[in-house]
C-alpha cells in the first residue's frame, strides 16, 4: 500500500511542477491585472438647472454623459450604449437617443424603446445643489430594465437613421 520510492519521487515531481505552473500563472495574472481606474470620477458641478429646458439633451464632454430633461425631471445619461459600448448621439429630429452601431433607440430618460440593447442607458446620480446641477460621475447606475417607459416624450417624427425600415 505504501508507495515505492519511485512512485513517491514521481508524485513529488508532478506536484512540484504543478505548483510551479500555478505560481507562474498566478504571479503573471497579478502582474497583468489592470490597475485600479484612476479616472474614478467625482462630483461635477454644471450649469443652473433651468439652463436645461424640457426636451433637450446637452452633452457634457468631461464626463461623457448627457444632461436631459423629460417630464420636468433631470437626468445624467451616460453616452455609452449598454449594448456594445458605442457612443450614442442624441438625435434632434426624433428627440431620441439613436445608437449608430446596432440601432438601439432610447427616450430622453434613457429608457429603452427599441433595438437589441439589454436595458436602458446607464445614468449617473444627479442632484441640484443651490440651484446648480451636480452630477456624480464616480457612480454609474444600471439603466432601467426593458419595458420601463415612464419618460416618453411626444414623438417629433423624423429619425437620424437614413434607412427607415430598420
Amino acid at each position, binding site marked *: 500500500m505504501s508507495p515505492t520510492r519511485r512512485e513517491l519521487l514521481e508524485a513529488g515531481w508532478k506536484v512540484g511542477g504543478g505548483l510551479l505552473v500555478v505560481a507562474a500563472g498566478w504571479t503573471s495574472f497579478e502582474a497583468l491585472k489592470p490597475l485600479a481606474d484612476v479616472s474614478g470620477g467625482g462630483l461635477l458641478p454644471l450649469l443652473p438647472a433651468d439652463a436645461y429646458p424640457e426636451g433637450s439633451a446637452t452633452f457634457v464632454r468631461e464626463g461623457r454623459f448627457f444632461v436631459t430633461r423629460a417630464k420636468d425631471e433631470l437626468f445624467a445619461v451616460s453616452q455609452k450604449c449598454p*449594448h456594445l459600448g458605442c457612443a450614442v448621439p442624441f438625435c434632434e429630429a426624433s428627440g431620441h437617443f439613436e445608437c*449608430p452601431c*446596432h440601432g438601439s433607440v432610447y427616450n430622453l430618460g434613457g429608457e429603452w424603446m427599441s433595438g437589441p440593447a439589454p436595458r436602458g442607458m446607464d445614468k449617473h446620480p444627479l442632484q441640484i445643489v443651490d440651484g446648480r446641477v451636480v452630477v456624480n460621475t464616480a457612480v454609474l447606475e444600471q439603466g432601467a430594465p426593458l419595458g420601463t417607459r415612464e419618460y416618453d416624450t411626444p414623438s417629433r417624427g423624423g429619425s437620424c437613421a437614413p*434607412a427607415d425600415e430598420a
Partner: protein
Amino acid sequence: MSDRPDSGTTSWRTRLQESAVYRSVVRTPPFDSPRGRAQRAFGNVFLHVYPVRVPRALLRFRSTWRLGFISSVLFAILLITGVYLMFFYTPAVSMAYGDMQLLRSQVGFGQLIRNVHRWGAHLMVLAVVFHLVRVFVDGAYKAPRQFNWVIGVGLLVITLAYSFTGYLLPWDQLAYWAVTVGSDLVQYAPGVGGWLRNFLLGGSTIGQSALLRFYVIHVAVLTAAFFALMAVHLWRLRKDGLAVGDPDVAHDVTTRATEAVRTPVAADAHWLADGRRVLGVVETEDGPGHAREPEHEVFAWPHLLIRHQVVALAVIALVLALGIAFEAPLRELANPNVTPEPSKAPWYFVGLQELLAHFDPLVAGVLAPAVLVGALLLLPYVDRNPSRRPEDRRVALVLFWTIFLALVVLTVIGALFRGPGWGFVLPWEHLYFEP
C-alpha cells in the same frame, strides 16, 4: 573524391563545394540527380518540411487548392511586412496615429508595406477558412488525422486573434470603434465577462493599456503561439501522411480495393471500403499491393517544389497588386466621444455583428461563436464515420454546408447591406464597407 574529370583548372565553385567548410554545412552530394536531391531534402531542416516523395495526386492543383501552403506564404509575407512596420510604430495613444501618417509621408515604401500587410491579413483569413472547408469536404480530419484538425482550428483562432488585435493598432476611428464593439461582446459572457474584458483591455475603457496589450499580443504572444502550433501542424502532417492520394479518398474502385496500411497508427484499427474492420497488418500481407507503389509517387523536389514556387510567386504578386491598387483605410484620429456611422466590425466578424442585431448578445455574441469553435474542435471525435467518400457522408456535408452558407449570408448582409443605425441599405445605392 570527385568523379569529375580534372581539367586542371577546377572552377572556384567546385573548389568551394569540395572544401571542408562547405562540406560541414552541406553534407549531401551535389543535387543534380534525383538521388542527390532526395538526400538533401532528407537531410536539410528546411526542405525536410517536405517528404522526399509525395503522391502523384498531390501535383494536381485541385487536390488541395494549395490552401494550406498559401496560408503559410501569406503568414511569411505578414511576418516580414509586420517586422518592417514595427520599426516605425510606437504603441502609444499619443503617437500611433501619427506614425500611420508618417508611414505614408516619410517612410520608404511605408504605405505600400502597410497596404500589403492589410490585404495579406484579409487574404490569410480567407485562405485559412477555405483550407478548413477543403479539409472538411475531403474528410481529411478523420483517423489518424483528428488531432491535426484540432491544431488547425487553433491556428484559425490565432489568425482571427491576429486580425482583431492588429485592427486596433492604427488608432483611428475605424480601429477604435470596431474594437469597442468587439471587446464589449466579452462582457456578456456569464459571470466572468466584465472582469475578462477589463483584463484584456487593462482597464475599463480602451486607452493606453489596451493599445499596448493588443500590440504585445499581436507581435509577440500570438507569433510564439502560431509558430508552436504550426510546428506541430506540419510535423503531424508528415507523420500522419497526406490525405490526398491516400486510398480512402481515391474514387476509382481498384485503388480502394487494394487499400492497406498507411501508418502504424492506423494499422491496428482499419476499415475496408465495405465496412469490415480488419487488422491492417493482416491486410498488408494478403493485399495485392497498396497505393504506395512507385508509380503513384513522385519526388517532392522538383515536382512539388516548383509548383509551390509558382503559387508563392502568384500570392506575392497578388498582395503586391492589391497593395498598389488599394490603400489600407485610415480614418480620423480615434475619438471616444463620436461613434462613426455606421460602426462595423472587420468583415470576418461582421456576420457576428449581424447576428447581434437579431438576438440577445449572450446568444449571438458569446454562445454562437463558442458553440461554433467547440463544434469544430470536437468534430473529428464526434464524426466517427470512417468513410471519406461523399456518398457516405451526406448528413455531415449537408450540415456543414448549411452552417457555412448561413455564415456567408450573415457576413454578406452585414458587410454590404447595412448602413447607419444598422439599417438595411442596398449596396448599389450606398456602399458602407470598410475592409
